């Protein structure tokens, strides 16, 4: 019982976080930046930040993750990090030769007051940025928001800093990907193509963090949204932001800078959210929903109905990031399951409001985000009201083991299983995967624990 210390009595805590259900902004910015082709993420802070983010992303993707660091020293923290960043920009362009450097700040550089906008402008003025190359930035202080905020800030940064409005509208739709897996981004591109909608999806980590074995270590893998594509987002006729927390800020930035109208929909996880996404895309791109997509939907509904008896009334605890939790909770409700406890370390009133709306269908469910919304609290809730299923990232395995709960891994990070990079969770086929995973653990449990006379061949 690794979590033997967890008590069922829930007490208010003063600030203290025990076993977080979040991490800090910079890792989100690093992940987002990897979704630009030829981009080297740069961490403006101590060396450790960069090492931790790379290690975590590597553990999640089982892929090399390249990023540079300003390697702050004592001097930099006294005199400011400008000299470090300028030197870093020099080093990176001459040594690693990326097309783009995407700089994000850290708690350290934010606290000493480094202004990334001013420093990158100085780099440009001083001729440190070679012709045809770019330095973009996002302010990502670790003491505000969470990793999701960092992702949102970097994605907004790439939109705001690259998009150009030429005055000539293009027949294309911007798809701003909320924090999702490379497999999900690949799936969104497939769906769009299937629908005949011309889209620019960004960021796009497919073919970056799910790269094939080639016998070579490629510093800049072939995937990622390109600079011309990012520039063209300013001329797109519409923007669809997938996720109100991680994607919408980029859509707002595009609207502000280039007057591209936008709509925010939930990340297309599960049936209802995917329905809304498909309708929104069909409307934005002016295309009809093809029969093939309708058939995909039909297959998901078919499985949901075939298996409804195994879902009905099952209690679920889930945790993770806002843009996933919103549609996932809705999907669980659509399946007839009962979400009972939901926790996200990511703060924000928007998320709170949205979850409360969805949870109207689940009276008495516990929900908390932001301060003190951590795995310790989730565990305490579970102790008070046990559940049949736990859904969340790898950190859920402690609770799953101690409380003996079937566990489906979903979200970030997943440090102990594979699959998330390759099999999407978005769209109708993503919904199928989620259903398959949930059924898998529930039925395995039944098979292993059912009394002999109740042990069934056919389920």
């Amino acid at each position, binding site marked *: 019982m*690794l*979590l*033997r*210390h967890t008590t069922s009595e829930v007490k208010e805590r*003063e*600030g*203290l*976080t*025990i*076993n*977080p259900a*979040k*991490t800090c902004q910079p890792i989100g910015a690093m992940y987002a930046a990897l979704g630009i082709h030829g981009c080297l993420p740069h961490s403006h*802070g*101590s*060396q*450790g*930040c*960069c*090492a*931790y*983010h*790379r*290690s975590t992303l590597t553990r999640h*993707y*089982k892929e*090399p*993750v*390249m*990023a*540079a*660091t*300003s*390697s*702050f*020293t*004592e001097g930099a923290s006294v005199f400011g990090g400008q000299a470090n*960043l300028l*030197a*870093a*920009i020099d*080093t*990176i362009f001459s*040594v*690693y030769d990326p097309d783009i450097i995407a700089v994000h700040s850290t*708690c*350290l550089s934010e*606290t*000493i007051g480094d202004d990334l906008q001013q420093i990158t402008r100085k780099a440009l003025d001083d001729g440190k940025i070679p012709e045809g190359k770019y330095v973009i930035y996002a302010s990502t*202080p670790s*003491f*505000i928001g*969470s990793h999701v905020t960092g992702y949102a800030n970097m994605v907004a940064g790439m939109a705001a800093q690259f998009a150009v409005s030429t005055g000539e509208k293009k027949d294309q739709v911007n798809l701003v990907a909320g924090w999702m897996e490379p497999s999900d981004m690949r799936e969104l591109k497939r769906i769009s193509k299937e629908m005949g909608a011309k889209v620019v999806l960004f960021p796009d980590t497919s073919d970056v963090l799910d*790269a094939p*074995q080639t*016998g*070579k*270590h490629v*510093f800049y893998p072939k995937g990622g949204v390109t600079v011309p594509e990012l520039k063209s987002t300013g001329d797109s006729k519409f923007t669809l932001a997938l996720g109100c927390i991680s994607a919408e800020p980029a859509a707002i930035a595009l609207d502000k800078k280039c007057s591209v109208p936008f709509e925010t929909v939930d990340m297309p996880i599960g049936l209802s959210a995917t329905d809304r996404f498909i309708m929104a895309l069909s409307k934005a791109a002016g295309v009809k929903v093809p029969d093939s997509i309708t058939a995909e939907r039909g297959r998901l509904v078919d499985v949901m109905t075939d298996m409804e008896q195994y879902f009905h009334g099952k209690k679920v605890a889930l945790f993770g990031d806002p843009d996933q939790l919103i549609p996932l909770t809705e999907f669980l409700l659509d399946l007839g399951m009962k979400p009972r406890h939901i926790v996200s370390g990511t703060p924000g009133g928007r998320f709170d409001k949205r979850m409360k709306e969805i949870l109207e269908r689940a009276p008495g469910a516990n929900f908390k985000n932001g*301060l003190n919304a951590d795995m310790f609290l989730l565990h305490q809730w579970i102790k008070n009201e046990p559940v049949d299923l736990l859904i969340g990232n790898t950190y859920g395995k402690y609770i799953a083991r101690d409380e003996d709960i079937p566990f489906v891994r979903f979200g970030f990070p997943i440090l102990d299983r594979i699959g998330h990079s390759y099999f999407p969770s978005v769209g109708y086929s993503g919904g199928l995967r989620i259903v398959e995973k949930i059924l898998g653990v529930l039925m395995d449990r039944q098979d292993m624990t059912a009394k002999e006379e109740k042990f069934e061949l056919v389920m």
Partner: protein
Amino acid sequence: MEQIGILEGREKQIFEKKDGGQAFDISCETTSLSGSVSQRACVFCGSRVVLYPVADALHLVHGPIGCAAYTWDIRGAVSSGPELHRLSFSTDLREMDVIYGGEKKLYASLIELIEKFSPKAAFIYSTCIIGLIGDDIDAVCRKVAKETGIPVLPVHSEGFKGTKKDGYKAACTALMKLVGTGPIEDISPYSINILGEFNLAGEAWIIRKYYEEMGIEVVSTMTGDGRVGAVRRAHGATLNVVQCSGSMTSLAKDMEVKYGIPYIRVSYFGIEDMSAALYDVAKHFPDRPEIMEKAKEIVSREVRELYPQLQKFKAALTGKKAAIYVGGAFKTFSLIKALRSVGMSVVLAGSQTGNKEDYLALKEMCDEGTVIVDDSNPVELSKFILEKEADLLIGGVKERPIAFKLGVGFCDHNHERKIPLAGFEGMYNFILEVYQSVMSPVWQFAPRKGGSL
């Protein structure tokens, strides 16, 4: 093959041994260049990994959430009892705390945690911004120690204040405050502390078993299956046995000065070094020859059992080439010897934190043509692995996918090792793991081995 260049400014941290004669000069112990894709970490990381295995202590990270999140249960340093060290505690500083200071939050968190978990001591890690916002964590620690009656130890590990090695030192400074505060009356004169052994996958248990069989009392394993009570009594030991070049040497030195306890450096990897680790300790107790007798008995018994088992792998592994890139240089020496014992050669050897002496010793030990690197990066590692046609890379978490992308075998000799690699049985495990990775049938499908469509 397409040539990959060495990065500009990196020439001085790379050395290739040729014709024996050329002057040896490698630049090391420098901070990494701004803008480099380094494999290194920070001061906090150094402190955190060293102190982490003290299992009955509270480890509270004072700062924004990231530092605590990334170091939550990442080290397989196993405990035979309490597992408080495997939870993640953070003051989770927010913007207002950064503006108004985090002392109040730190105090409240400590009181709450000590009440809830009853730890034997508490380590409070300062992260980068603590140094900047000016929280007086020493004062908070003193206050809480007084109120709760347990040692509450600040660890000054602000990430930017040096390198990972400085973090080791900060950890040692904190430990040193515990040493000397426990009773030592009943400790045998034939006693040691084991330093720099983190009990990854239970390695400290193996080592401890050998020493105890020799009739030596192990007072404290310090940071491997560590206990506060044992650390407090560590000054009662006669000898400090230090593994790992960087992490715990400063504690050993401090204990030598303050308590007159001498120390020796050892390694538990490979037959040669493991045997030496037992003999060197035995030599320290010449008035009791049965200790040496017993050491010899253990070595001969273990080697007799191990040797034939290793021979099974030797035929397959002979002529295979390895690249080594690990944290400390000291480990590299052991690995070279261990690999040689099964017929493998080492074509690349490097570390994140080696010093000049280490690299000089490494150069002496290496074969002609071996490349030696300090604070390397993925470009260089790939270059030399391909050019030198290595069959295996030994490294840590960030190196693993690089090896696999290149199509060469891999062995984690860092936090993520899953089986004990130390001791005689660890040597068997190590060679087995090397064998299983190098000889895996999957490499035939790697393009490098002609496995393309």
